[in-house]
């Protein structure tokens, strides 16, 4: 059987999308592969497909828990029951169950913290491993968004599992990040498949407003023309709430908000409603997005400046996964830059703070205290938990912390200076990333060209009228306001709960109920 036939039979697609076949072929040849394919291009298929053919289990490391859960459930819902997952949220019993079930046909999603679990790895190593995948691989780069010692373990783990071939995938990698990924995974003789980050059918629009009020005014006008479904990104949780109230007041469509502080059940319900077209607009923080694979999102609006071009491209990339015309809009004011800048400020310790932290740690070490858990430790240091995790990351790298042991002898003036330098550097690096984002929108030059340049690409000639800087207006893309009419539900008071219940459980067709 040739690959196209398999694609048709097992995955129900008629043809490969750009890049997929090349990447899959390299993987089937057992090469180590780094694949850079734009958002929504179909990276999942690049490992799902080979996992069905190769001899041995496929392990997929996925950096974000919610992303992983969504992805696993989507794949299972499509009927592939060989897809399983292991993450820190599972109970002991559930974990045991999964470890019993895995076999050479399994495609197993792992969250990074699982990589530190020896026993679990031993179980994984007892099965033949065919392919090791790192999805969203930009996260493991030291320029990635999070500090996790677990990422440093990846290369050992690959060896421990008997050196299966390795596939790293991302949509957003500069040349620097690309090199870093290859280094982190110690990929031997890698094949690099790099495709343009550009997505032609997403059109970019930037609008700078003078005041917050005018920002909302502009949004209101936009919503008259822009098509739904739409995601509107806001910087904080409370912003998502007030924004959704505002949109409700405009009657611009059915709206809900979504942020990381909601209960898991409510988050899933909102997500389901959106996927089912029971909502037109979702107002969300960056907690929403990565796992969302809704093909027909027409519009993504940012009501602030994202902290980096990567994040902007990832979030805007939720739009138009069906390859139809879509819009990515940024509406900002000058003041918006202070929010990300102050977030960056909060992330790193002041010199004095760092001194106190190290002193406290030294004391703990001298008293032979074994290292407390992360929550406890951040309380002791009076630091935010991410701050402590970042410090821990560096201390582990310097061998000051190994497991629960604090090697207090290593805590010295010298160490302080080194850490302080590293933190200042990281901070600068982050500020620069934000500046890059800022200059994408502030310049009078083409936004698309700016994005491509950021990712070390040249803009191909021939994309005319591609963004607001090139003279495109929203009306050129969308003609009128199309609210989605399907799946509109009457309020439950209309027909009463009994009728509603009957419709849900028994269906409109055959109902012979009292």
């Amino acid at each position, binding site marked *: 059987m040739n690959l196209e036939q398999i694609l048709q039979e097992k995955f129900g697609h008629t043809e490969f999308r750009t890049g997929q076949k090349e990447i899959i072929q390299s993987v089937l040849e057992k090469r180590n592969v780094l694949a850079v394919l734009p958002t929504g291009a179909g990276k999942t298929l690049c490992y799902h497909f080979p996992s069905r053919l190769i001899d041995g289990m496929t392990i997929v490391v996925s950096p974000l828990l919610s992303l992983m859960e969504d992805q696993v459930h989507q794949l299972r819902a499509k009927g592939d029951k060989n897809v399983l997952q292991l993450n820190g949220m*599972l109970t002991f019993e559930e974990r045991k169950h999964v470890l019993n079930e895995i076999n050479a046909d399994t495609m197993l999603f792992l969250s990074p913290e699982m990589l530190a679990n020896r026993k679990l790895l031993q179980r994984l190593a007892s099965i033949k491993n065919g392919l090791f995948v790192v999805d969203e691989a930009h996260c493991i780069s030291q320029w990635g968004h999070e500090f996790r010692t677990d990422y440093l373990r990846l290369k050992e783990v690959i060896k421990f599992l008997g050196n299966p071939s390795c596939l790293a995938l991302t949509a957003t990698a500069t040349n620097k990040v690309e090199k870093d990924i290859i280094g982190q995974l110690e990929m031997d003789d890698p094949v690099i498949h790099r495709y343009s980050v550009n997505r032609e059918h997403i059109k970019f629009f930037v609008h700078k407003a003078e005041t917050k009020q005018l920002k909302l005014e502009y949004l209101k006008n936009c919503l008259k023309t822009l098509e739904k479904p739409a995601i509107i990104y806001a910087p904080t949780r409370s912003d998502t709430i007030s924004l959704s109230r505002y949109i409700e007041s405009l009657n611009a469509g059915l709206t809900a908000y979504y942020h990381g502080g909601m209960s898991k059940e409510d988050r*899933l319900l909102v997500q389901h409603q959106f996927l089912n077209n029971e909502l037109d607009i979702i107002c969300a923080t960056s907690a929403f997005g990565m796992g969302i694979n809704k093909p027909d999102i027409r519009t993504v609006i940012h009501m602030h400046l994202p902290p980096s071009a990567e994040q902007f491209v990832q979030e805007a990339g939720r739009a138009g996964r069906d390859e139809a015309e879509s819009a990515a809009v940024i509406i900002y004011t000058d003041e918006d830059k202070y929010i990300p800048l102050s977030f960056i400020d909060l992330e790193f310790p002041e010199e004095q703070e760092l001194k106190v932290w190290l002193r406290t740690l030294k004391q703990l070490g001298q008293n032979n205290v074994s290292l407390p858990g992360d929550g406890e430790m951040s309380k002791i240091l009076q630091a935010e938990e991410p701050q402590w995790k970042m410090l821990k990351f560096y201390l582990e790298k310097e061998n000051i912390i190994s497991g629960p042991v604090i090697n207090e002898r290593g805590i010295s003036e010298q160490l302080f200076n080194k850490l302080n330098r590293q933190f200042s550097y990281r901070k600068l690096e982050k500020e620069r990333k934000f500046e890059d984002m800022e200059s994408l929108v502030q310049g009078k030059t083409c936004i698309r060209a700016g994005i491509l340049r950021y990712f070390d690409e040249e803009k191909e000639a021939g994309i005319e009228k591609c963004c607001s800087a090139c003279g495109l207006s929203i009306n050129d893309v969308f003609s009128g306001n199309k609210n989605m009419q399907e799946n509109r539900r009457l309020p*439950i008071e209309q027909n009463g709960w009994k009728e509603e219940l009957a419709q849900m459980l*028994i269906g409109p067709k055959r109902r012979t109920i009292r």
Partner: protein
Amino acid sequence: MSCLEWIILTLINRVNGQRTSGGVYHLLTGKRSAQTIQDARLFDCYKIAGSVKNLSRERFEDSVSLMLKKGFLSESEGNYYLLTSKGKEVLQTLDKKYKLPAYFNGGKYEWSGLAPVYWERFSLFFQTLASFAVNEKQFIPVSYRLDTQRWVKQRIRELQQPAATASEQLYNELVEFLHQLPEREAELFVSRLTAPGHTGRTFDQLSYMYAGDPLYTKLFFQSVLHLLIKNTGENPGKYPFLHTFAEIKKGKQILTASAEETNKLLKKGKTLEEIMGIRGLKRSTIEDHIIEIAIYDKENISNHLINEEEASVILRAAEETGSKRLKQIKDKLGGKYSYFQIRLALARQRER
């Protein structure tokens, strides 16, 4: 003032300065520690305890300091709070606006985790049958929990009748149950359910039903759920489907994992000291486990640690002192009983 402030004021009023704000917070969130479980009984707030399980500590502290600032609360040294006369007035007004819904019993159904487990299973089972009804065999489940998914799958596999018949049966049972409720509560309950094209609504989306307050709305939903568990448990014959979602493997889920270990050893007849040795844990930790077990366990395996007679002496003393502080009870008893024995006696006292 929102429902949350009402609940916080209510609890601070009950505790009446005998516990720190931390103790009050644990009551609100239903912390599964022996101390808190006992406090719920002592301060007669068993029903409202555990009513805001996912309240963050920050949110709680914010709310308390706001009420301090407004003069509803006064603080005595060491984080003990009392209602001021202004606070009492406010609480009286709020008591007119908010009422604990009729069947709500946090201590019984939320604390143990029974109601959430029941709901997860039931709503996924419902979604599954509803999807079958429109021939959708594949759907994204409302619950991501693997054990719930496994449990429901098993239930579906064991069905004695065709799915369509099962749906009708479930429908009839639900109608039977919901009919006894006020219209609003039945509407609320049905609105939370998910079927193809009918995704459940969040409490925020349903808050228009109850004073625009999502938390208050949630309390009503939970109240219906508590009644459902109660009714179906009392009358399983009438609810062949609905009563099964409350099934819990013996001792499972109710106890914390570590207390469960201790429980197993106790059942094997090990003594407290032996368990300390085997598990390498401190006496106080094992004692906490035993208190936790005593609260939930009906078989009274702690009988050999304290007998009925001793227990009733202690309980009488507790009644007489009228205080909730263990120290005072201990003094009243002339130091004859240890703190552990007193706590154990109080723990075994069944729900009032």
